[in-house]
């Protein structure tokens, strides 16, 4: 459709041609690299008004002076000049203007000119993503797109990242966007389908960012509702690289780097002498209340039980657990193409060590994309990706619903005795460093072969797209996609390991397999009648999703040496399969009049096996319109200021499905046993009425280009989700803790601003700024049961309350330390301070003390080039404000003595009350503290407001003459610096729900790289 392009001004002028003397008739054709004729290209005599326009076959014929130079121009292509020199036939082959390519945007089931798009979408180039992360796409998008928030469970390489587009549109159903790779919907497998839960694992990082051409984020209904039921959380379209016609290029890129904890102030524990003093004080304070609290010991007696009571040994276990980790990335890619066939092939290797001892991520990936023109009416494309990823690591908190895993980095860090030396005098690792006896030396625990958690993932992503051009305005295409993921997880606890001791060794293998077969068939129509452009598509789609897992485990191992399953004795087996199916019809139509007035509509009807027969089908639709005011006559007086100005609006619906495969069915599970007998039990209450979650989306905004140098786009969105799929809490008396139901409404609204400016544009220096800014809020609008509050989460620490933000923390409010007594104080009723304070946590009332969702997020990128592009530099700064996190590790590291018998405390916890330090930050420590000031309260809610440098990159394009087309060397840093943070000793990058469980904080890395193209 983008081939139907307006005739340029030059061409119009050319129509008023004037014949000159010594002229001849020149004929010729204008085609693109693929040989497609370009209709409407302007062919003019340089320096004159003489010219013509190519016809449907791309041909032209007109009289020109013999010594003329012809200039051919066509929108989206680089103009070309050729001297006539008496030739009668002159053919032009134009190459696409890559600058202009950026303005073609990949959209649902196709692509279109960005200036013609009426929906809301943002596109990031693959290079920009790979610059930020060669490990995972999601990490590469941070801070680059308005309205998009990205967070990871953990700084471990290979852990899952979560992308949130325009807030949170669901409470209990999925909140992850839909991923579509080259037109094929990727596996809808959630992490739960693929992961046993000992440690976080991301599916997205099976895809090599280096193979990505672009990533488009579809935000509003107009952009996304063609994906119907799966579009409620937005859609991310990933387009991989294609081969290009012309010279074959081979590119090698390589990177080497180091990473470490981004915020070095985080996770600092008390040193040896400080810990001894803390134990003494906690013990004495406990003894004074009741000797039972300190096991009958005095503080001095307890303090003498540490590994080295003299205080001369002091080990910083943070430095023992976390390290400088090495990473490398290599990619070789080939791009080649002739008239009929274009090929892209890439082979990549990534090896990223985690910053926790012993952990790593490794990926081999290969991709081949072939585009072939079978004949004049048929094209075929085959895309095949295969990748193998391996990770090794440790358990983390991702599978912990409550309580802390002992053999996790945080577990080990808190329980290691700072007076114990890491090594014995003989140089071997000291086995007994844990203050509680439940963990061990991190060098033995993490960096060993006696206890580990490994994953090995294979993914194959295949697609075949065939297009038949029935006429030049009608085509039929079919896309068949198959996404297969095989994830094996290996758990090994040797008999001598801490976790393995009770079982006398445990080896477990979990095999998760998921497959997604998708087929879509579309009839496409596109035509132009004078100024009227019309395009439409209609088709159907079917998606078959299967997941299965097999588990086998053995224990009672003869020793640490062998860990194959056959070596141990049978311990357990398990397995199950699940399947969901979706059938859809879809249609879409776009109209524009002279690129001035636009209207679009789309429709999709989806049926899903995840819902009951009576409610499984639903319709989703959108309408949108845009008006390019800058094309109107009345704007001509300000045509430079309003170089391009378009307003747009859209409205439509999207849906969301329950994440459970069979949530609507009343079920008896056979997944149990009693003694040696089979067992079945009532496992799910029936809910035939369970239906789709629906959201209504409204979007309005404008795109404004000023003086061809400044771009400003502003959008307001309002997304109202109703019939929320909600895990309604049920009374345990019914036999169920919750059931899936459609209740409640959720509102997301926000304003997104994207600003770009070419500040300096000189040959020797260019400077551009790109900035995005989002204000957003997510409000719970309606709740069931007459709007009663719904507490949820670990210890009911969150609350759903009408009018309150999503992820609101609902906890007692900490008043502070009573300077007289050193005891902590909570408000009895946080909303009515007249009721006074209490020293006992159990007597404190709760209120909303913060929310995880920030009000404002954004990023600013500065890009510069020097000396005609010889050197370049860029840096990205991101910011957020208005959100909070829940400091789960802080619950253990600031226990006011409660955990003194088993854990060390954070170094800042040393500022506790003593008779000599009465204005202390923390109350006096008491072993087994009966007041429980440490329990979840506003003390653990910390602001995530911060400004941080996400990326810095500097590069040089080394001038080379022979053999090599391009040689670029660069250095870059990710997360190098926190410019400002409201809470300096915590890394503010935490999970989207604000629950800081992270064992491995966000990392910073410094990388050197090289790019060679020949």
């Amino acid at each position, binding site marked *: 459709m983008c081939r139907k392009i307006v005739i340029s001004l030059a061409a119009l002028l050319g129509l008023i041609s004037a014949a000159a003397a010594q002229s001849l008739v020149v004929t010729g054709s204008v085609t693109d690299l693929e040989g497609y004729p370009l209709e409407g290209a302007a062919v003019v005599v340089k320096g004159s008004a003489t010219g013509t326009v190519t016809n449907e076959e791309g041909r032209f014929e007109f009289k020109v002076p013999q010594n003329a130079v012809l200039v051919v121009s066509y929108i989206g292509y680089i103009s070309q000049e050729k001297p006539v020199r008496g030739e009668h036939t002159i053919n032009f082959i134009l190459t696409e203007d890559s600058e202009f390519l950026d303005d073609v945007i990949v959209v649902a089931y196709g692509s279109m000119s960005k200036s013609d798009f009426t929906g809301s979408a943002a596109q990031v180039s693959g290079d920009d993503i790979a610059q930020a992360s060669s490990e995972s796409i999601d990490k590469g998008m941070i801070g680059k797109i308005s309205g998009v928030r990205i967070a990871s469970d953990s700084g471990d390489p290979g852990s899952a990242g979560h992308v949130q587009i325009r807030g949170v549109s669901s409470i209990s159903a999925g909140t992850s966007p839909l991923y579509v790779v080259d037109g094929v919907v990727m596996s809808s497998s959630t992490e739960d389908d693929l992961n046993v839960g000992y440690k976080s694992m991301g599916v997205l990082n099976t895809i090599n960012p280096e193979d990505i051409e672009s990533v488009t984020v579809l935000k509003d209904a107009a952009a996304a509702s063609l994906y119907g039921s799966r579009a409620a959380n937005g859609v991310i379209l990933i387009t991989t690289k294609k081969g290009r016609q012309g010279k074959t290029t081979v590119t090698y890129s390589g990177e080497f780097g180091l990473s470490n904890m981004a915020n070095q102030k985080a996770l600092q524990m008390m040193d040896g002498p400080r810990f001894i003093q803390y134990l003494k004080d906690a013990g004495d304070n406990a003894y004074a209340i009741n000797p039972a609290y300190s096991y009958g010991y005095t503080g001095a007696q307890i303090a003498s039980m540490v590994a080295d009571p003299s205080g001369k040994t002091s080990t910083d276990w943070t430095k023992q657990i976390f390290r400088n980790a090495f990473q490398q990335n290599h990619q070789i890619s080939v791009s080649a193409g002739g008239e009929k066939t274009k090929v892209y092939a890439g082979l990549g290797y990534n090896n990223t060590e985690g910053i926790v001892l012993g952990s790593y991520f490794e990926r081999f990936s290969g991709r081949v994309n072939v585009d072939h023109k079978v004949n004049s009416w048929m094209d075929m494309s085959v895309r095949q990706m295969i990748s193998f990823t391996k990770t090794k690591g440790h358990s983390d908190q991702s599978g912990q619903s409550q309580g802390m895993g002992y053999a996790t980095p945080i577990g080990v860090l808190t329980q290691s005795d700072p007076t114990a030396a890491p090594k014995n005098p003989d140089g071997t690792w000291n086995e007994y460093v844990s203050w509680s006896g439940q963990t061990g030396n991190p060098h033995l625990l993490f960096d060993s072969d006696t206890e580990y958690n490994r994953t090995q993932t294979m993914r194959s992503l295949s697609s075949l797209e065939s297009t038949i051009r029935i006429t030049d305005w009608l085509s039929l295409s079919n896309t068949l996609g198959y996404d297969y993921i095989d994830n094996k997880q290996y758990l090994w606890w040797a008999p001598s390991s801490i976790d393995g001791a009770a079982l006398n060794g445990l080896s477990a293998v979990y095999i998760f397999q998921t497959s997604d077969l998708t087929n879509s068939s579309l009839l496409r129509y596109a035509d132009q009648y004078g100024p009227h452009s019309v395009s439409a598509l209609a088709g159907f789609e*079917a998606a*078959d999703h299967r997941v299965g897992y097999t588990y086998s485990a053995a224990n009672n191992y003869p020793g640490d040496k062998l860990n194959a399953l056959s070596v141990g004795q049978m*311990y357990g087996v398990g397995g199950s399969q699940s399947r969901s*199916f979706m059938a859809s019809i879809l249609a879409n139509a776009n109209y524009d009049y002279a690129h001035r007035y636009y209207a679009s509509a789309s429709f999709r009807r989806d049926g899903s*096996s995840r819902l009951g027969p009576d409610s499984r089908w639903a319709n989703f639709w959108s309408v949108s319109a845009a008006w390019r005011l800058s094309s109107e006559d009345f704007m001509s007086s300000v045509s430079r200021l309003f170089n391009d100005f378009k307003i747009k609006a859209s409205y439509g619906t999207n849906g969301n499905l329950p994440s459970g495969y069979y949530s609507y069915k009343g079920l008896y599970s056979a997944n149990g046993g009693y003694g040696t007998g089979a067992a079945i039990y009532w496992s799910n209450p029936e*809910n035939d009425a369970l239906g789709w979650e629906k959201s209504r989306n409204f979007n309005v905004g404008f795109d404004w280009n000023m003086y061809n140098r400044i771009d400003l786009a502003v959008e307001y969105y309002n997304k109202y989700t109703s019939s929320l799929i909600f895990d309604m809490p049920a009374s345990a008396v019914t036999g169920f803790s919750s059931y899936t139901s459609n209740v409640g409404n959720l509102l997301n609204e926000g304003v997104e601003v994207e600003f770009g400016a070419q500040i300096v544009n000189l040959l020797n220096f260019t400077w551009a700024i790109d900035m995005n800014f989002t204000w957003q809020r997510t409000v719970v609008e309606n709740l069931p049961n007459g709007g009663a509050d719904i507490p949820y989460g670990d210890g009911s620490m969150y609350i759903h309350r009408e009018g309150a933000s999503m992820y609101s923390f609902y906890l007692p409010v900490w008043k502070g330390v009573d300077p007289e007594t050193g005891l902590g104080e909570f408000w009895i009723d946080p909303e009515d301070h007249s009721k006074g304070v209490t020293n006992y946590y159990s007597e404190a009332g709760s209120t909303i003390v913060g929310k995880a969702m920030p009000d404002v997020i954004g990023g600013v990128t500065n890009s510069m080039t020097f000396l005609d592009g010889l050197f370049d530099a860029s840096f990205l700064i991101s910011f957020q404000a208005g959100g909070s996190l829940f400091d789960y590790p802080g619950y253990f590291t600031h226990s006011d003595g409660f955990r003194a018998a088993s854990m060390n405390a954070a170094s800042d916890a040393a500022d506790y009350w003593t008779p000599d330090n009465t204005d202390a930050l923390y109350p006096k420590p008491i072993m087994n503290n009966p007041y429980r000031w440490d329990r979840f309260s506003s003390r653990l809610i910390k602001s995530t407001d911060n400004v941080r440098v996400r990326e810095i990159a500097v590069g040089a394009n080394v001038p080379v003459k022979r053999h090599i087309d391009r040689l670029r060397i660069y250095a870059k840093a990710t997360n190098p610096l926190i410019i400002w943070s409201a809470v300096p000793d915590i890394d503010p990058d935490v999970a989207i729900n604000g629950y800081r469980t992270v064992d491995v904080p966000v990392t910073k890395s410094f990388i050197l790289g090289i790019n060679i193209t020949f």
Partner: protein
Amino acid sequence: MKTMKYILPVAVMLSGCDALDQDPSTSVTVDTAITSVEDLSNAVNGAYYVATYGTTMTVASELSIYADLVGPDSYQPASSGQNASRLAQYALTPADTYNAYYYLYAALASVNNAIDKAADLEDQEAAAPYVAELYAMRGLFHFHLATVFAPIPTSGSSNDMGLVLADKVFDISYIGERASLQDTYAMIVSDFTKAIGSGLNMARNSGHMNYWAALALRARAYLYMGDYDAALADARQVIGESPYTLYTPESYTRAWSQEGADEVIMEYLQTDVYNAQRYAPGYYTSPLGYSEYGVSPEFYAWMQQTPEDVRSQMVADLNIAPDPDYNPGFYPLKYPGNAGASVRTYTNNIKVVRLSEMYLIAAEAALHVGEDASQYINALRTNRIVGYVSVDEVDMDDVMDERRKELFAEGHAAFDCWRTGRAVVNGSFTIAPDDYRTVLPLPVEEVDLSGGRLKQNPGYGG
């Protein structure tokens, strides 16, 4: 090739109609779950499976030793911050008791659902013993809940709130109110009585509620209610008519790892596959495990005063040579692990009721109703003490001491104190029978959800 292109999507679309009906691989729909007596038998197993689900705070994990942990003789050789030591310190809050509540009610929901479905079976005669067992289980699970979340009737607590009674299948939106303590125990007795009278299996079957188990537990319920005539009658019937025999001094120490040992009327089965793992009493009583449940030095010393009593061998002095991995202390030895278990500390059947308890109930009830109690105590001691000489008379203190010796580490100690009006004294704690800490708080989730209808136990902020 060309035709394929058109056919394939159409074929997928057509198959799509059926494909939209998918069934899980590990579950069946409620309507088709129980269509035979064998299914019903599996459903009975299923309710036990749920009640003993492998996690913290179930009747197969901490709740099995709850009364010991909160009782006078417990001691924590180590504290790993798990629920056993927190129970022993009376430190559980309403945020910590969900599992204790949930799994028993979930099992009750399965029980009630199966009772309903059983009514549709054709072969009612064959189904009857299973239906009777389901009623017996309903009584048992309520009884567990009542001892944990409500006071024992004879304790004289001013808290007279019982349980939300799960006497039928409820709609998912059901919010219950607590019945009175009296009605709660009335239902427990009524369910046992119904089971006893409707064809319960009388053969030994230690993992299941049979006729004798229902009778024995009804005896315990009557004892807790203060209906001593009824308690005595039931206990006597079990002693006189059941196929169980008392352990002997020779068999006593070996019985704990056996399934279906001579005295065991009912036990929850634990296997290599289905067990409470680190929350099992075996792991709590292991010096290499969590080591949160040991016995006090005083209790150990008291038991050792009678070395001729075989029960003195059931506590061990493991204050042995320092090994940093080893938590020294005095430990009960009643959880040695099932014979042949893969992980012995994880896997030990949980004794619900043993024959010796019937002798003790009979003795206690007999004292209350003015009958001779010594015969029961003599019979028991003869099988515990080598060279025992019978006595003519016993008093209540003798019976209570005998209970303390015989039933320690089996979930009785604190209940025996409170229901007889005595305080639990352990270290710094003195918990009188009317102390709010004699019962656990109802889970905060339940109280919050009820919108005020479910009353929290006093003292827990409700």
